[in-house]
């Protein structure tokens, strides 16, 4: 799921789409007819909301609709940001392989800042504790073999701020 070009879809969003985004980015109403409830709040028909949300899902503006488990509360307390230095020419291929591990929740290619920051691939690794995260990082390292030119794992020690993205 690569996604770099963005602007075409965003231009196609109209005022009602944006109202739907604002009404649902905090969550869907937990009622039997959630889309009709969103529609009622916006003064439009349920069909309008259903059609527009389906279109946003089809075009990737909505990544998915569903539940986000709170990994911390559910016992996945070791969350490490693993960062990897790999050959730029191989970075996309290797990034896809890293992203395919089921314990990786996000994987990205990002810019280096030499000499102080050499890593160009980032992968969030989840486990029950730090030891399990390190075991999983070792699996990534084993997959990469000598294409791993160096890696580190940055554990979070404190959440300093966490507000939901408010994007519309």
């Amino acid at each position, binding site marked *: 799921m*690569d996604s770099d070009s963005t*602007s075409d879809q965003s231009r196609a969003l109209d005022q009602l789409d944006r109202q739907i985004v604002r009404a649902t980015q905090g969550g869907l109403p937990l009622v039997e007819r959630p889309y009709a409830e969103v529609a009622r709040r916006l003064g439009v028909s349920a069909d309008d909301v259903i059609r527009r949300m389906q279109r946003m899902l089809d075009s990737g503006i909505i990544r998915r609709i569903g539940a986000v488990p709170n990994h911390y509360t559910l016992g996945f307390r070791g969350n490490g940001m693993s960062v990897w230095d790999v050959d730029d020419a191989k970075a996309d291929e290797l990034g896809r392989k890293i992203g395919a591990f089921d314990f990786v929740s996000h994987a990205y290619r990002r810019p280096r800042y030499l000499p102080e920051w050499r890593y160009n691939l980032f992968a969030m690794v989840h486990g029950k504790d730090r030891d399990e995260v390190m075991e999983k990082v070792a699996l990534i390292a084993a997959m990469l073999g000598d294409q791993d030119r160096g890696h580190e794992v940055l554990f979070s020690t404190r959440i300093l701020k966490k507000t939901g993205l408010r994007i519309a």
Partner: protein
Amino acid sequence: MDATDRAIINRLQLSFPICERPFRQVAAELGIEESDLIARLESMLARKQLSRFGPMYHAERLGGGLSLCAIRVPEADFERVNTVVNGFPEVAHNYARDHEFSMWFVLATETPDRVDEVLREIEQATGYQVYNMPKQREFFVGLRFDL
């Protein structure tokens, strides 16, 4: 959390239907009542076992700017810089990490151009270089916990 709760989370990590009675459809797949599914979701949200339930929007495709940024903050100056950085409304998340690059935050701005402007404002206000690490390529975003 019981086996039914786990089955609900595993099922709803994948997708949720867009139709008139989506809870009824998912409940039928799971072999439970629609009202039970709704009540369990309410309960799991209240207990913070779920952090969200609903659509996940793609910020950049909505026209906004998004970037991961890092600062090398010396420990002695950490609380001052933390206060300054968190004071920017564009800073959505901010984490302390056990590394020389000790502060990592996500900037979410109304337009892509604003990312660079806010970065410079943060540099001026903190006195430290902000390393802007926007994603150049996204390989996977999702959660696939098998509970």
